[in-house]
């Protein structure tokens, strides 16, 4: 009997083939988005006109590179600051939450745990409008009753930060709590027996143990914030972060390869951060 007629072998190679096709499907759009950043053409399409770095570094129209495009760079900076704030805030609250749910007992704990997870399943658009409506209500109330204009509750960067923070915190909490669960409580007891104060134990024993998870959660929070679109769209004011700027370009001007350049840049950035978090998790196991 030849191999080609063996039905088991045939099925198995079909299966392997299917897995290969699946991973091509996963890679295809990413490769397509990235590769045309280097095509020397006005459109992100075939035919291939030769390799160029113009879409990154060229300083004049019509082939304005992304690093000389002032609106894109401004969007990049805004996204960066938003993401930094969101990750700092969500690591802080996430760490508090982790201690609250892992170490403490309080009434309605299970109900609170459900509330903790809920932000993950609320569609981003709805989270956005809910916070927009709530903030506007407060701002209007202050303006109508006392004539005070609370500018920061109007659509803008603060609301974007709050909106992203509202669901990113769930993720950081889950990551940090998972690490805290592995902590051997005897370490703290030993330190206590040796005469250390509670604060000192927290600072020198528990928090250092949590550090990899906190940094990992921070990286995830940074990426999610940087890439968020749905919630941000509802809360954005005049200062648009990168995803919004990019979307506007896509929808209005039609796409030029500068968008591929931004895509490539974002993919490389994500890749580096992902690598960093994998390396950190490796360290965590030791």
């Amino acid at each position, binding site marked *: 009997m030849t191999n080609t007629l063996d039905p088991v072998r045939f099925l198995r190679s079909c299966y392997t083939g299917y*897995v290969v096709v699946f991973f091509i499907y996963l890679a295809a759009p990413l490769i397509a988005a990235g590769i045309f950043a280097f095509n020397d053409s006005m459109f992100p399409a075939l035919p291939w006109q030769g390799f160029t770095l113009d879409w990154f570094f060229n300083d004049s129209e019509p082939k304005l590179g992304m690093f000389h495009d002032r609106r894109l760079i401004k969007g990049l900076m805004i996204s960066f600051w938003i993401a930094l704030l969101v990750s700092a805030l969500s690591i802080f609250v996430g760490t508090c939450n982790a201690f609250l749910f892992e170490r403490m007992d309080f009434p309605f704990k299970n109900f609170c745990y459900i509330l903790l997870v809920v932000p993950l399943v609320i569609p981003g658009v709805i989270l956005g409008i809910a916070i927009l409506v709530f903030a506007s209500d407060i701002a209007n109330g202050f303006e109508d009753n006392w004539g005070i204009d609370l500018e920061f509750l109007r659509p803008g960067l603060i609301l974007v930060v709050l909106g992203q923070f509202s669901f990113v915190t769930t993720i950081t909490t889950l990551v940090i709590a998972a690490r805290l669960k592995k902590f051997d409580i005897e370490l703290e007891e030993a330190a206590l027996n040796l005469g250390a104060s509670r604060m000192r134990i927290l600072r020198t024993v528990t928090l250092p143990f949590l550090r990899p998870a906190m940094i990992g959660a921070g990286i995830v929070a940074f990426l999610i914030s940087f890439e968020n679109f749905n919630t941000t769209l509802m809360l954005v004011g005049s200062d648009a972060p990168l995803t919004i700027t990019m979307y506007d370009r896509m929808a209005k001007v039609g796409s030029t390869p500068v968008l591929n350049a931004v895509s490539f840049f974002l993919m490389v950035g994500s890749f580096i951060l992902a690598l960093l978090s994998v390396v950190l998790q490796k360290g965590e196991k030791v």
Partner: protein
Amino acid sequence: MNQDSKRLAIILLFAPFFLWIVCLIVLPHLGIFVLSLKEKIGIGQYQYGVGNYAEFFLEPIYWNTLLRTAVMSIFVTIVTLIIGFPIAFYIAKLAKKRVKAGLFLLCLIPLWVSDLVRSFGWIVLLRETGIISSFLQNIGIIDAPVEFLYNDVAVVVGLVYTVMLFMIVPLVTTLEGMDDSLVEAGFNLGGSRLTVLRRIIIPYAMPGIVTGCIVVFMLTAGSYLTPILLGGKNSQWFTEQIYDKFITHFNWEAGAAFGVLLLVFTSLTVWLGLRLTGQTLSSTVAKG
């Protein structure tokens, strides 16, 4: 720790959680619910009523869009499950240890890349001047450029792509817990491949399947970017209606009502799905 300081610690830790959940989640969602019950009767004058909901049910285009969103989301969920299950099984049971970790990481890659970039990738591939169209012309299957974008197939392809890993991760987790001897026993007792799959593997993987389906369904129904970019004007996604009401028409009351409807409708669908499969939320999601 004595009682007082323990209580103080709980209060200090509870404060950030409370502020976050109440100010950013509970009150805003109560807020849109209250707002959805307001009707505008004049400039700056409102009365309470169910007018916004009535508008939704009286105008076929609105509830058609919601129904369409729900049906498409269920379809996407099923397709994701059918495509993802063999991959999850391969990763969990067939791949060798080294390969397994690598494949699992590969599945996670789309998560690390922005939704916008992913959709843009599909646009570059599928549009009239895109790669697939040019490629098919070059090898002579089609003579003129073909637009693959702006139809339901493009939307489904893009959505399945976006949510795939949320199906694969819970599936891999449950399948990894399955003892291989269960499958062997099934074969030894004379079960065919199909019987073993249907009677042993699928029942075992049920918690993972349900978890994956819930997450995928919620993400799909609430998605905005992918249907808009890949479906264009034909996408008719319900989140788009909400955005239009809010930003384009500045009719916040109706927009809030639509938001509440989407939340209620998706929750009902999940509840119905759980009832039909005989699972409970705590037996599936909590385990995953």
